């Protein structure tokens, strides 16, 4: 048995559901690319428009991300606190409420039950259920930490991150009469999630996994964690301003937003450096190379997709032309996949074999999955990028009209559909591998630092 506490088991259902939703999300994504690439009959568009498919694509994304974070938190919390979870029953109840709300929401979307607010389309009654689930989750996490004898910076960082995440969600719930105020607070949810709360959760979970796998000293890891999250929040909070250039807000946002958002790659660079250093200075041998592929892949992809793409796209003179174009789509895909899909997969590859009592797993299939998805998504990002630059140039720069720009882009979306199929294959392989993970027959290297010594 590789898990130290029985209550860590609750995380398994979070992971399984997240993986199923991941596949659903990618299938919907393929459907969206068909909408771009071909002319669809009016009758089909009437019953299943692009807008409905898109709201499912994005909401399922958010749902599986959150399931991964919550499951990951439940997995690492007991060993980190040196005790069982406060209540596994609450953890299951919360999962049932969350999933019931999410499934009802998706079915509702198909019948036009929506708030019509991008990414936050879930209607108010279901939103209340989500809030209940979030409150149960935070209470469970907080009680586990409060009642533990061992206190660590990592525990508090994790609790802070998930609380921050939940509080921000509230700002998206009211109806705002003024469109510009509506979008002002919309970014409190979207931006302060992905460039704030989610980064804090990511940094904490990655710090934990690195500490456990490498045997590097806790003090060193926690120091990095403080500096990284400090910089994430310093640049990320005011960096929200890069969304306020064109919504009708005072001029100073151009400067504050532009400068702080240009600094946003810094903490990610630190994360890459820190991961790299810990791999080099590891005390324990590498047991599962594939888990390491994911940890290092996450750091590098995070830097490219979120950091580099985001940096270029949010410089105000560039953003004037690229804002709200396929360039945004390119950035969105590379950043979400690079930072958060890979984070979740890192968690799954760290936790799922252990939950099945497997120390060293057979990873041939998983490696195929890793390379197909990471390379596939990178090419997809480039294809969207080409489409976006074409669109920006034709529609915004040369000013020859939306139709011309989108007609020209159709070819690139046929390419995107093809690449998407390959990506889907990679995702299916990865999910299949995780569901059927088996022990490796190769010899397992002995750890130098026992995990327990590091708590």
């Amino acid at each position, binding site marked *: 048995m590789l898990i130290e506490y029985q209550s860590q088991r609750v995380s398994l259902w979070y992971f399984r559901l997240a993986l199923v939703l991941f596949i659903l999300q990618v299938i919907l994504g393929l459907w969206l690319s068909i909408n771009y690439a071909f*002319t669809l009959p*009016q009758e089909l*568009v*009437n019953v299943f*428009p*692009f*807008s*409905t498919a*898109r*709201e499912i694509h994005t909401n399922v994304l958010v749902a599986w991300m959150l399931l991964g974070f919550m499951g990951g938190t439940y997995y690492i919390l007991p060993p980190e606190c040196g005790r069982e979870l406060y209540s596994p029953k609450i953890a299951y109840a919360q999962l049932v409420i969350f999933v019931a709300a999410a499934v009802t929401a998706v079915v509702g979307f198909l019948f*036009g039950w*929506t*708030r*019509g*607010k*991008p990414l936050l*389309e879930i209607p108010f009654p279901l939103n209340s259920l989500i809030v209940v689930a979030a409150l149960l989750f935070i209470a469970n996490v907080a009680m586990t930490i409060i009642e533990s004898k061992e206190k660590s*910076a990592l525990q508090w960082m994790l609790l802070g991150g998930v609380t921050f995440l939940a509080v921000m969600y509230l700002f998206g719930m009211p109806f705002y*009469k*003024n*469109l*510009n*105020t509506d979008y*002002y607070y*919309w970014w409190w949810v979207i931006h302060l999630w992905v460039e704030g709360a989610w980064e804090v959760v990511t940094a904490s979970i990655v710090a934990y996994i690195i500490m456990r796998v490498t045997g590097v000293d806790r*003090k060193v890891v*926690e*120091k*990095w964690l*403080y*500096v990284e999250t*400090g*910089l994430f*929040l*310093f*640049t990320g*909070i*005011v960096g*929200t*301003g890069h969304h*306020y*250039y*064109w*919504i*009708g*807000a*005072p001029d*100073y946002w151009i400067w504050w937003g532009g400068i*702080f958002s240009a600094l946003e790659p810094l903490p990610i660079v630190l994360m890459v450096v820190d991961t790299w250093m810990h791999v080099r200075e590891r005390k324990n041998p590498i047991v599962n190379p594939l888990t390491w592929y994911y940890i290092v892949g996450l750091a590098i992809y995070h830097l490219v997709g979120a950091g580099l793409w985001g940096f270029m796209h949010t410089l105000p003179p560039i953003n*004037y032309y690229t*804002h*709200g*174009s396929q360039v945004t789509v390119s950035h969105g895909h590379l950043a979400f996949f690079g930072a958060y899909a890979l984070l979740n997969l890192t968690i799954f590859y760290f936790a799922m074999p252990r939950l099945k009592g497997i120390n060293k797993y057979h990873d041939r299939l998983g490696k195929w999955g890793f390379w197909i998805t990471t390379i596939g998504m990178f090419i997809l990002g480039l294809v969207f990028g080409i489409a976006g630059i074409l669109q920006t140039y034709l529609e*915004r720069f040369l*000013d*020859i*009209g*939306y*139709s011309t720009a*989108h007609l020209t882009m159709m070819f690139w979306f046929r390419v995107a559909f093809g690449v998407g199929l390959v990506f889907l294959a990679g995702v299916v392989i990865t999910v299949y591998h995780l569901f059927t993970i088996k022990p490796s027959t190769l010899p397992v290297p002995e750890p130098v630092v026992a995990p327990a010594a590091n708590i």
Partner: protein
Amino acid sequence: MTGKTARLIFWLGTLSSAAIFLWQTYDFHKQTPKFTHTDKLTEQVVAGKKVWHKYNCNDCHTILGFGGYYAPDMTKAFYRLGENNIASIVQHPEVMYKNSFRKMPQLGVTETETKQLVSFLHWVGDIENRHWPPQDEKFVEAYRLRESQPQKLDKVHLVLQACGGCHTFENQGRNVGGDLTAIANRITYDRQTLINYMINPQSVRPGVAMPPQDVSPQTAGTIADFILSLKSTKEVSK
């Protein structure tokens, strides 16, 4: 670096950024009435915003650059299309985009809802957002120019504003109803029939997709003269 310094960096970074951001938020609320003309944010506009949400417009269209990236941005749609065109598109997308490579769903938006939506888009179009999106600024300027000095307008401008929502002329405008030069060479109507056609298309050609146009007979006359002048000389000499 000691653990204490690391903690200090965390708290300094987080709190300073949060403080700046909260002050900016306060200032944002103070200045929003000026940037978005909240005095013109009537009940009708709010009702229009609810229509915008009800039909999930924002998951295909962007507005202020946010939303789905599938359909055109709606920030300055009022100035780009005008009230008539918005109404025609929203109520009869299957007709307006019959020949288009991209379709818009028939959503069953009522006439009242359409009016509310137009008020909403008119109000959004007036948000002072640093002239974004770049491609629509010419429509805003043209609209303001027409309002301030109608007598100085050049005919091409006038015709494109009135007809450019559906017809093209020298590669400008939207190609839904055909190119004006091609139409001029095809039709056999005289000036008065053409004027009647514009004001009530069904009276001249029953079953035609073109919606009635809200133009005065004088303006329609100017447009008719313009269109008839596009007939190539060869045709005329026949």
